[in-house]
């Protein structure tokens, strides 16, 4: 028998109270991107330890986590259409969808052994189709 408490981040509480839930990215800056199938990101173990950062696709974020560039997103807020350009050869067509019901983002905090509600999403960007070539 286990009981795990869920606390609510005070930023989320403020967000819920003001009902500021209507943009693609939440007021806290989070976004959900859904891609049909598997997004093939190289794992750190597969990369040569010393020199993968010489490859321009790879870099480090502000906390020194290795990151890889996936593509460029172009969002048309009026038509709710989103295009993602991957490299110089492929593009994905997607759209902004409303989530019904909204989704909560929970994060397990191992120190306190509890979940924390970090954000609430009302929209997501969805790419349902196969990639198209860039002509």
């Amino acid at each position, binding site marked *: *028998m*286990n*009981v795990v*408490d*869920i*606390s*609510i981040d005070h930023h989320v*509480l403020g967000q*819920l*109270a003001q009902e500021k839930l209507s943009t*693609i*990215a939440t007021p806290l*800056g*989070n*976004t*959900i*991107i*859904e*891609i*049909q*199938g*598997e*997004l093939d*990101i*190289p*794992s*750190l173990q597969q*990369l040569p330890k010393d020199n993968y950062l010489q490859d321009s696709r*790879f*870099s480090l*974020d*502000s906390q020194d*986590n*290795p*990151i*890889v*560039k*996936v*593509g*460029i*997103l*172009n*969002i*048309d*807020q009026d038509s709710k259409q989103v295009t*993602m350009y991957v490299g110089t050869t492929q593009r994905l067509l997607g759209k902004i969808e409303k989530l019904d*019901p*909204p*989704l*909560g*983002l*929970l*994060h*397990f*905090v*191992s120190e306190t052994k509890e*979940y924390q*509600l*970090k954000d*609430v999403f009302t929209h997501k960007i969805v790419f349902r189709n196969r990639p198209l070539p860039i002509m």
Partner: protein
Amino acid sequence: MNENNNTTLYSQLEYDHGYKLIQLTPELLDALKSNNNALKFKQVQTDHEGTMVDDVILCSKNKSWNIKQKNHSNTVLLCKDEKLNGNDNCIKGYGKCTYEYETRLTKGHINLNVIPIYDGEEEEKLDSCNFEELINQSGCSMEEGIKEWEEICGCVIDNHVCILGENYIHSVLHILLMSLMAEGYDMESQGFLIAEGIESVQKDGNENEKSQVIESVIKRFFHRENTDTNGKEVRWLIDKKKIGVWYGIKALKKYASKNPIRDVEFLQEWRSMFPPFMSIEIDLKMLRGHYCKPNSIQGQIKYLSKDILPMDSKQRFKMLFQIQSQWLQEEIEPFVKDLNTRNMKIDTFIMKFARRRHVGKQYIIQSR
């Protein structure tokens, strides 16, 4: 994220796997808005057609949700705005979700498997948990737990939970009703305080009767006065229907469990079981779900406990038709409605397993 221009999407090579997505139904959103820090996940064992399985229940202060893990094969990337490589217009994928938690509002229940039955014997030593621990072990919110606790006549003695035995409840209820009548309490309109109920019982030669037991019996068979008490203690009014049904079931067990009894005769026996001068209206309809009318014996009834019926729908209907070939819909419904777990319309559910005929103003249910 710049919503009208180009944004560069990066992804971490190693994701944080501690992130989960959960569906927030309107009721759950309301709970989040109103009850800060009151939500908890509970892992509980529940009985699914005779097999014990682990379920996860999400509970707020007063509601419960069943949690199901909904897997999918798409890439769901959690991204956050971040300045990367000197560019302000970037988002970074930091987590990936392969499932989301589906939440369905459900009725929470207390875990009865961990509660001993107490019959009032002094030598019985209770070693069960306390009430808070019981609620933590049960797939229900605190408010749902307290409500069900009163309905099952649960009691906390010396910080240990127990359920009062049926015969023990009956004897305490009988003494309580007689004591309150002897003290002249107007149970229907004025009501009484719990302390007054306890005092009435204990000064009537039952000083050893535990206060907690009397309180549990009061909460089981009386209801709170509806009017605003303005901070005063709650007064309790008699629930004649609950008491009538309780005595009716006792009468069925006593007079109609071995052999059928004529319904007119049964009504007399039922009435005779109440304390003297206690006026409660009785009708056989009040006991639907506790008796059957065995085949080929007109005008007679027999006690039938739902607890002895199979948990499988097909088998339960089969057994019910073996006991009684034709049922009024209102009489069979209480015996089968707990099997309608998909919340279908009850007529539709019955017709899945039986034939339904319209005779006059009534519906007759019989085997196919």
